[in-house]
Each structure stands twice: as structure tokens, then as C-alpha cells.
């Protein structure tokens, strides 16, 4: 019989039959290679059986508590993200569905809305035109008026307005007193 068969029997997990046992013993007596392999197997077994367990660095449980806290924080963040995402998706979906439902109802009103919109645009255009006319007029006036009048005119205008407001106030106050 070849080495390979004995090589297999040497490391067999199941018990060998008496015949197999005898054949193996006979082979080991005559074969140096298989004898060396059997000795190596015993040495390995000895090494594995006499090696102690490796201990973690002190404070393993404290480090585990820190890991647990980190893990909970991570899970919380992930859950918050998931809630935000699902709410956004839900809102967008609802808005789309609502819009789709509303569109047929709005259809008859579309010409009126368009008309209103063009009116608003026209008004804005008019206002712009008026503003431009005024700014041109102001420029001409400013260029034409000498610097002294440019100071005197606003001051006298302000003074006149003040006199006007005061007299209005007095008139109404006197009327009130007469009534009393």
C-alpha cells in the first residue's frame, strides 16, 4: 500500500479497525517518512494543547461600554436620516398626487389667469415708463437750476410744508375747543 493511505489513517478522526491499526503499525516500522509525519503530528498536538489563551488589554468592558454608546449614537443618526428622507419622499409624492388631482379643476380658469397675468405685466411696464419720464425730467431740471436755488428751493418747500401742517393742526384744535 502507498504512503497516502497511511498518511490519511494517521490523522483519522474516526477510530481505525483492528486490521487497519495493525497495517499502520507495520508500515510505520518500515517507513521513515510516515514515522516522521506521525511524530510531527504529535508535536503539533502538543503545541496546540499547551498554548494558553491570550487576554485582552485591561479595561475591555469599559471600552465595550464606549463602543455601545457610539453604536447607539450612530443608529440614532441613521434613524433620523431615514425619517427625514421618508418624510421628504412622502411630501413630494403627496404634492405630485395633489397637483395631478388639481390640474383638471384648474383647466377652465387657465385663460382668465393668463389674462390677469398679462394685465399685471402691462401695469408694471407702464409704471416703468412713468419712472423713466420722471427721471429724465428731474435730470433736465437739476442741470437747468443754479446751485443756490437747488439748496434754497427744498428748504423753503420744507418750511412752507411745516407752516401748512401747523396751521391745519391749530384750525382743527380750535374747532374742537369751540365745540366743547
Amino acid at each position, binding site marked *: 500500500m502507498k504512503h497516502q493511505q497511511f498518511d490519511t489513517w494517521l490523522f483519522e*478522526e474516526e477510530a481505525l479497525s483492528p486490521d487497519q491499526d495493525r497495517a499502520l503499525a507495520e508500515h510505520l516500522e518500515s517507513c521513515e517518512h510516515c514515522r516522521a509525519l506521525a511524530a510531527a503530528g504529535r508535536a503539533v498536538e502538543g*503545541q496546540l494543547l499547551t498554548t494558553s489563551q*491570550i487576554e*485582552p488589554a485591561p479595561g*475591555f468592558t469599559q471600552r465595550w461600554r464606549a463602543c455601545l454608546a457610539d453604536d447607539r449614537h450612530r443608529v440614532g443618526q441613521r434613524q433620523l436620516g431615514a425619517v427625514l428622507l421618508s418624510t421628504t419622499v412622502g411630501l413630494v409624492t403627496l404634492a405630485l398626487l395633489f397637483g395631478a388631482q388639481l390640474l383638471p379643476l384648474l383647466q377652465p380658469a387657465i385663460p382668465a389667469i393668463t389674462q390677469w397675468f398679462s394685465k399685471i405685466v402691462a401695469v408694471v411696464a407702464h409704471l416703468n415708463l412713468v419712472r423713466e419720464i420722471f427721471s429724465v425730467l428731474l435730470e433736465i431740471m437739476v442741470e437747468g437750476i443754479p446751485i443756490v436755488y437747488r439748496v434754497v428751493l427744498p428748504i423753503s418747500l420744507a418750511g412752507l410744508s411745516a407752516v401748512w401742517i401747523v396751521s391745519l393742526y391749530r384750525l382743527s384744535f380750535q374747532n374742537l375747543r369751540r365745540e366743547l
Partner: protein
Amino acid sequence: MTERGNEREWILHARRGDDDAFANLVEAYQVPVYNLCCRMLGDPIQAEDAAQESFLKAYRGLKRYDPNRPFATWLLSIASHHCIDRLRRKRIQAISLSELLPNQQKPDDSPGPEAALAIREHQQAVRGMLEHLGNHDRAVVVLRYWYELSYEEIAQTLSTSVSSVKSRLHRARRQLARYWMEQETVALATRGKCDEASAV
């Protein structure tokens, strides 16, 4: 209360979300879980990480634990699967075991320099051997030799059949014996060369 009774009590409380109760279980099983991770991954930093994650997984999955099964083998099962997954993902090359040695000895058995050297050589030899095995074969050897589990328990721990455990163990032992023989041949050849050099 007995240790077993304590354990049952801790598991019961931990299942209701009592962190302190599970911390007691971590304290009680840190060495076997860490050792398994170290033997599987060959790197103390990776082993610490894997052991911590295994305990987190166990705490999260505690509701799935069957109280009729030993808690230790259930934990070792989680740690084994976790390490095999890690090795598959990263194909970690085991690094020098000399980094493991500071944590290896208990404080009360501080050996002298010669004994420390012997332990170092012994551990290096074991690490070298385990490195030569496939992930699953290594797990079977570790569970068999460091935890003395039966074939049935190993099969349950690794979610496999008893026949698969036996064939893996058979293959691993044969592989380890061949590796040992090769190492001895190399050592003899090196010694021979040294002797020749010193004779000249």
C-alpha cells in the same frame, strides 16, 4: 448564587435592555472571545475590534439566543462568524505575534527572560501553523484545541455538519504535521550550514 445562576440572571436582565447586566457577561467572557479573535485574525488590534463588535452583535441579537444552548458557545459562534467574514473581506495577513505577548501572561506568573523567550517561541510556532490553514479549518482547530468543544458543538458553532467538522479537522491536522516537518527540515539544514561554517 452559582456562576451559572448569575449568568442566567444577567441574560434575563440584559434581554430587557439592562446594559450593566450585559457588561457582566462581557467581563465574564472577554478572554475566550478575545482569544478566539486573536487566533483567527493574528493581529491584536483587529482582534480587539472584532471582539468588541462580536459583543455588540450578541447584545443586539440576545432575543434570538436559545437559553437551552450554552451561552459561551453561542458567543463563540458569533465571534467565529464575525472573524471569518472579516478575513473573507480583508484577507488579513497575520502580523507578528510579538505584539500579543505583553497581554499574554497573567500578572501573577511573570516569567524570567528564558521562560519569556520560550513562551514567545512557542506562540510564534503556533501562529505560524495557524496562518497556513484556511479560514474555516483554522476556526475548527481553534475551537477544538482552545475550547475543547465536541464535534457536535463545533458544528453548531460554525453552522455546519459534524462530518464537515471531522473532515476539516483531519485535513488541518495533516497539513499542520506536514508544515511542522518542513520547518524541522529547514531548521536542520540551517543548523548544518552553521556547523560547517564554524568548523571552517
